[in-house]
């Protein structure tokens, strides 16, 4: 479902954000992308979603190559990104309008969009909140509304960037339940290794733009490895 080969991306100021990253994720798999700040996790997501154009390397995600302009246009229908800060993602005036934003951009008929809005809000437990204004939502509600906005596009691949950021323990627990109940392939970038442990079967460790190691979630038991890459084992 996701196949990345020797991906390299540098910012306009020359800073290398991704340096020869290669890995694959099978359909239906839930994989954790872990690493310290500046490891390149968010940049990788932006490359996978076609926002950033890598200089070198090959990407194939949900059968599409983001480097190809025609295929890039089809990416939003197949790849959903949940950003670190939900305020960046909830830009419409009401929750319903925001959830409808993506499906409307897919030129779906209004009735189907309404049906998808209702379904997605139901999936994240936000039925009845359609007319609320995003800035009045709590952190957990914002996160759920942001996820609903992505689910409404029915993506085959979900990229979740620091999904537990700004959430209290209750919100975090609800999020773990929600993520585990979501269909499709998931790539979860997070510092919250306990969340990764509870939602992913495999992890990929990144540091300084490079992929260091990949393996089963039990890899996070290796205290030395975690400390070497600025992380802490969630297995106590």
């Amino acid at each position, binding site marked *: 479902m996701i196949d990345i080969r020797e991906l390299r991306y540098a910012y306009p100021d020359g800073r290398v954000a991704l340096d020869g990253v290669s890995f694959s994720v099978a359909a239906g798999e839930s994989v954790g992308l872990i690493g310290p700040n500046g490891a390149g996790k968010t940049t990788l997501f*932006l490359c996978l*979603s*076609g*926002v950033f154009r890598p200089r070198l390397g090959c990407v194939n995600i949900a059968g599409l190559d983001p480097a190809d302009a025609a295929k890039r246009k089809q*990416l*939003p*229908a197949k*790849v*959903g*990104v949940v*950003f670190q*800060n939900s*305020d*960046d*993602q*909830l*830009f*419409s*005036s*009401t929750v*319903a*309008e925001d959830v*409808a*934003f*993506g499906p*409307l*951009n*897919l030129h779906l008929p*209004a009735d189907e*969009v*309404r049906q998808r*809005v209702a379904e997605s809000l139901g999936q994240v437990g936000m039925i009845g909140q359609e*007319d609320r*204004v*995003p*800035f*009045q939502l709590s952190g957990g509600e914002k996160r759920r509304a942001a996820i609903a*906005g*992505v689910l409404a*596009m029915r993506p085959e691949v979900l990229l979740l960037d620091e999904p537990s950021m700004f959430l209290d323990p209750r919100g975090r627990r609800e999020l773990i339940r929600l993520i585990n109940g979501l269909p499709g392939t998931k790539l979860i970038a997070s510092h919250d290794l306990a969340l990764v442990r509870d939602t992913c079967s495999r992890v990929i460790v990144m540091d300084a733009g490079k992929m260091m190691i990949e393996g089963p979630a039990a890899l996070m038991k290796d205290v030395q490895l975690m400390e070497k890459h600025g992380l802490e084992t969630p297995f106590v």
Partner: protein
Amino acid sequence: MLIELYANCMSLNPEHVTTRDSWLALRDARWRLAAFVIAIVGVALLRQPGPASVALGLAIVLAIVGRVPGAWLRTRLGLLLFALIPFLILLPFTVNRGERLWEWQGLAITDAGLIVAATLALKTVALVTLAFTLLATAPLHVTLCAASKLGVPKLIVQLVLLTYRYVFVLLDELSRLRVALRVRGFRNATSMHAFRTIGQVTGTLLVRGSDRAERVSHAMRCRGFDGHFRTLTSFHSKPADAFMFLLLVGATSGLVAWDVLG
């Protein structure tokens, strides 16, 4: 001071007072917007106190019909009148025609000056009442969608929508910065240090705003945004919408005719 500014801006948010079931709120937003814009322009043109008084009366009737919460409206009108006080005090002294009612050391209050001041106050309160009634009878995005349907450039509509959405986020950031300053001992003062700090805070806000704009743009592109805002809001005209429009436009025309001819 910043907290007060923040609180005031939050209270400017009309969403929580939007009435959805009043006769005015049930009208098609396009007809309502067109009628209110014409009414606002008409009232702005008035120059006589008689028509201005009637305009204020009609604006209050519309606010009642639109079930605009009285306390919410009164608070804002009170603030507006407070801001108008300097103009209302100065105006009677600045008009030299008409009968001099009071004179001291070369300063004179004339009856024409008092009439101009009263007309200004009546017109302003009427205009703002109309504007708040318009805002309170539909969610802002519905009114802006109606504006787009009426030919207002989409770019302007999008900018207003995004500004409205993110002004509160920026105010939140400002509030956090203010707390960060206070806990490190900063107090507002007329000193170079204070001016420099305020400048730095403004710069920080601008940089953060710019970063956020970039992230929002990424999020929009990831959800297929191609430069066109699409919405689920749909409009359906009924005879009552045209009736409301004609009623309001007729009343406005009558007031303007009375003002010009009377």
